[in-house]
């Protein structure tokens, strides 16, 4: 089985992200693999282990620097990585990313595509279903577990109301959530292999696609109003006395 894990590179979540002159700035904080996509790679590696003869390919649409995120996937255990990069792809919205990913997936060929739930930067959570729609493949979203059986795949889908088990024929598009299992740490061997890996870069003409015009565009970027939360520490001689004071404060806030 050929599995593709789709990953993006984002600023680390510890980064102090700010709006500066209408642009996003994260100082010298490192760029990392989107945390949700580590679960996608983990889910893909679990399936590789479960089904002999499987391979995992990490796929990313992004700038040259995104190779570092792909290397993280290789170090975790992915067999190969592909970067789709083209100067014309700077302003992709999720629909555009989906079209490019779908074209790359068609070229690479795959039985199962695994996405993360959403990106940390844009946080749209749209790309997986949009890619599935372009490919015309079934969408099994928010999987907490995956089981492949011959030509079909069954997942436990985690939704607001509980868990549903949903089944579809392969090829299929999946997105995964944290219940899939903690992403494994890159092994020493994996890191060595990844550092030497040559990652192929596909251009738009390689995948036979043209740059999609963005439908969604940003008109303004601001820092959220800073909230002056000076904390008020509640003290007292006993838990009961503290609780009494705190209860009074909470009631005075009129939020109950």
């Amino acid at each position, binding site marked *: 089985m050929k599995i593709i894990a789709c990953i993006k590179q984002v600023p680390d979540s510890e980064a102090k992200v700010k709006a500066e002159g209408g642009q*996003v700035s994260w100082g010298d904080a490192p760029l990392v693999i989107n945390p949700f996509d580590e679960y996608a790679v983990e889910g893909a590696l679990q399936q590789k282990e479960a089904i002999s003869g499987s391979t995992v390919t990490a796929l990313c649409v992004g700038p040259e620097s995104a190779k570092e995120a792909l290397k993280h996937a290789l170090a975790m255990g992915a067999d190969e990585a592909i970067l789709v990069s083209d100067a014309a792809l700077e302003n992709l919205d999720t629909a555009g990313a989906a079209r490019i990913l779908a074209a790359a997936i068609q070229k690479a060929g795959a039985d199962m595509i695994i996405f993360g739930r959403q990106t940390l930067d844009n946080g749209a959570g749209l790309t997986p279903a949009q890619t599935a729609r372009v490919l015309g493949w079934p969408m099994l979203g928010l999987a907490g577990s995956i089981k492949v059986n011959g030509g079909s795949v069954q997942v436990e889908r985690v939704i607001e109301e509980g868990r549903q088990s949903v089944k579809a024929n392969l090829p299929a598009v999946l997105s995964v959530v944290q219940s899939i299992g903690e992403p494994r740490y890159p092994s020493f061997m994996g890191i060595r292999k990844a550092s030497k890996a040559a990652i192929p870069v596909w251009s738009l003409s390689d995948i036979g696609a043209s740059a999609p015009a963005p439908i969604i565009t940003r008109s303004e970027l601001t820092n*959220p109003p800073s909230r002056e939360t000076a904390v008020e520490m*509640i003290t007292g001689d006993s838990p009961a006395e503290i609780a009494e004071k705190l209860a009074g404060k909470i009631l005075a806030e009129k939020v109950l």
Partner: protein
Amino acid sequence: MKTFVYIDHFNGEVQPASWEALGLAKSFGSAVALVFGPKAGDVAKTALEFGADEVLVADDASLKDYRAETYASTLSALASSQNPGLILFPTTARTREMAAMSAMDLNTGVLTDVSGLEANGDSFVATRPIYEGKLLEKTVCSGRPVMVTIRGRAFPKPNREASKSGSITKVEAKGEGKSSVEGYSASESAVNLGDAGIIVSGGRGVSNNPSLTPPAGMDEKQAEIWRAQQGFALVTELAQLLGGAVGASRAAVDGGYIPYSHQVGQTGKVVSPDLYIACGISGAIQHLVGMRNAKVIVAINKDADAPIFKAARYGVVGDLFQVVPALTEALKKKLGK
């Protein structure tokens, strides 16, 4: 202008932000509510009571179980024939998928998790938090209809008036499902943190009560979970008294203390209640991004240096096993319960 409002429900249980979407739609003109799937008829009546001018109902057998493909195709067909300028959804697991697919069909875009929306001529400007709420962006969509999923509790809920009525029209389902739903289990404690006005959360600290003696025969891990359950019982009692929901940190979820559906934070749910009480949670950035928009944050932690106090309005340095039950008692008295 005509707005479609997709009322998201599961077997007749409506996701409350659907009504908030309906209220928002009315502020722009007329609102046509769409209800798909089983029990759509009952939900349609409620939609009229919440102010929908008209309801379109599709409940063919092919829509019995939610499948993104059929729901999206049905929506796309309705949008093509009726040309709404705007389609509003509550932000849920289902709507992100169906809106995503339908936008591809209609060659338009989706703005997700929107916390503000303004009409600007025949266009719309949406405000949405990005980078985990570290930034706010205003975005526009050049396609039509503009598709927007709104964040829960960001817009006012309209009043429900039982006397309101209107037309309910049956429409046809479209498209073919590509998956089959084989089973369903309600999570042990179905929670809807996104809509909760009050959340009481527990972290790793809920397992830290050395004075509790677990039943004999437990190994270390079982004993830890047992202790954590005693801690979460206190958290739950406080949440229930206040009519709130129970949240958790990832450490509590990973520790096996409570199901993942309760997790608040970067890889869990982003919440914005009026009151958030964090018990035994250190306040890692990945947790803070999920709850820092709460109106009032209360932190109870043994460690005076815990970063959670920097985000809190009120803080107590103390043992949650003493402070939480005492707070429950004090509030019970003050609320006369």
